[in-house]
């Protein structure tokens, strides 16, 4: 298989498994998507859907054991990241690709000054003097709206929102081409979330960074992404442009998600929950992974692997029922 030359990042048929006490947990089951340069791609799904495993696979920071990338290719500008040796991969991490983690409280070193933590990243990837690195780190802090005089403060002296900015400054310090943002605003209050999202949008425009945004919050994804994939039980169940998914959601899981969330826009007397629970990833149902909870499932959904079907140009849906209705 060769890489699609137009896309900046191309993931093909990624499979990640965890082994735990003899059983195999199927976290990511054949995920493929691509990201164009300068665009933002969203991965939406609930706890345990496999979103974070996908991001960690791209950076190759999955803990092995228990995690194993069983299959797949991850092309960054045509080069398969899964084939690069560890030494070269280290040069890519933090420089070409960097990641913002969900929990700003635990992602920083508590006994190191925040400025130093940013400086460290810069020094690691550039051959510059400490003085220059320090200046750069100071500039990064200012960029995310933290006054330079707080360079010598420790993480505990910052609020949650400010810590998350420090993390973002660190992730952007070497001007990465690809930013993996894993629930970057989930731990924050809404008014602070709004500040951080606005800042990410602004920085993206200024620096032209490509981004993968992981979130369980449909509103956050609507705010920041160009295209997105809905992930369920380790599979992409629906994928397309933001307009396609938000205006013409097709997969029963996606429409179920929209119906289940209360919103400020419409009054619902009663929410429509998705019945049942997500499947046990060590014992996934055969056929469609969603059929036990699906309101339109039929016998045919229980058999064989359901393919991702293009139901309109660029809009894919992993549901044979919907595909039959559309055609």
């Amino acid at each position, binding site marked *: 298989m060769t890489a699609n030359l137009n896309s900046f990042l191309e993931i093909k048929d990624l499979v990640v498994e965890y082994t735990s006490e003899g059983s195999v947990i199927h976290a990511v089951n054949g995920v493929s998507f691509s990201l164009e340069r300068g665009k933002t791609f969203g991965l939406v799904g609930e706890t345990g859907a496999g979103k974070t495993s996908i991001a960690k696979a791209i950076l190759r920071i999955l803990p092995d054991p228990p995690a194993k990338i069983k299959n797949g290719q991850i092309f960054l500008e045509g080069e398969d990241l899964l084939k690069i040796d560890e030494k070269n991969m280290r040069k890519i991490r933090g420089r070409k690709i960097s990641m913002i983690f969900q929990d700003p409280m635990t992602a920083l070193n508590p006994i190191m000054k925040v400025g130093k933590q940013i400086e460290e990243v810069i020094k690691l990837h550039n051959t510059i003097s400490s003085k220059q690195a320090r200046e750069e780190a100071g500039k990064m802090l200012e960029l995310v709206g933290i006054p330079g005089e707080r360079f010598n403060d420790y993480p505990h002296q910052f609020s949650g929102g400010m810590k998350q900015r420090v993390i973002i400054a660190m992730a952007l310090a070497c001007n990465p081409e690809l930013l993996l943002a894993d629930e970057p605003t989930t731990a924050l209050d*809404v008014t602070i*979330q*709004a500040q951080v999202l606005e800042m990410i949008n602004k920085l993206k425009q200024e620096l032209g960074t490509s981004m993968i945004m992981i979130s369980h919050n449909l*509103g956050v994804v609507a705010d920041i992404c160009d295209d997105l994939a809905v992930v369920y039980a380790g599979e992409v169940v629906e994928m397309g442009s933001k307009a396609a998914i938000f205006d013409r959601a097709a997969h029963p899981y996606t429409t179920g*998600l929209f119906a289940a*969330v209360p919103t400020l*826009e419409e009054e*619902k007397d009663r929410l429509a*929950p998705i019945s049942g629970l997500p499947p046990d990833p060590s014992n996934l149902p055969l056929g469609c992974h969603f059929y036990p909870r699906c309101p339109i499932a039929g016998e045919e959904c229980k058999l064989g692997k359901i393919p991702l079907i293009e139901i309109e140009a660029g809009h894919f849906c992993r549901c044979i029922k919907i595909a039959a209705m559309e055609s």
Partner: protein
Amino acid sequence: MSALVEVKNLKKYFEVPRGMLHAVDDVSFKIESGQTMGIVGESGCGKSTLGRVIIHLLDSTDGQIFFEGKDITRASRRQLRKLREDMKIIFQDPYASLNPRFTVEQTIMEPLLISGKFSHKASSEEAERLMDMVGIDQRLRLAYPHELDGGRRQRVGIARALALNPKFIVCDEPVSALDVSIQAQVLNLLQDLQDQHQLTYMFVTHDLSVVRHISDHICVMYLGVLVETCESKELFRHPLHPYTQALISAVPTIDIHHKRERVILQGEISSPINPKPGCRFRKRCIYKAPECYQAQELVEILPQHFVACCRAKEINHL
């Protein structure tokens, strides 16, 4: 309708090394019987402390708490025991709030046995009934919390709260730890239980969409202070306090064609320790003026719509 719960000038201060932390500062409101009062605000605004003070998990510093018209602020131990049957709480994290060594049945039976009203056998039967009520399968009777998923754990927390037929339940972020598809199941359950048993809720949350969905009335809190209160629909139709306006505008919308006009607040919530007099929001407020340095009163600006902002009329062109 009458007020089941009423608080008047309620205060809760904590002594901390740097001074007095004003967690709840001079808060007054009523909750009508059978209704849901939503308490919304960001972390550190005192909303959880408020719930805990009302049900006497924490002692108040000053002010009064009324339950069914009686002043219960300084209730004796004996009175508290009876009160605790009528006032319950559901916590945010169902994992941390359940005893890991208790089975589902033991957890639900505990308050029944403590009350002294149930024999062991009767409490076991009652636990069975409560499990049915909240939709936990009987086969999970002997399961431990770690064997349950988040949604079921929260149902156990709800069943425990329903034991002894309470009248009033403080729901402290009961769905924040749950995924959206499960969150909807639990919110529907809470609404059904309220209808069936005429329960009165105080629903504490940071999530505006959830609070709008579930509440009849809403109180918006900022740094321990009640800044705006009115009917739920009215609040979202005509938010009058600059903080409420910014808060609502900050919620990311799933309507991709009608982006909300965002008010991006500068800075962050300031410290609740030894707060300076005057409006606590003024540091971040875009309408800040000299009069904001004076104490702010909760004023009825529109019928049944109270706002603690001296400029509310002017900035909303009323």
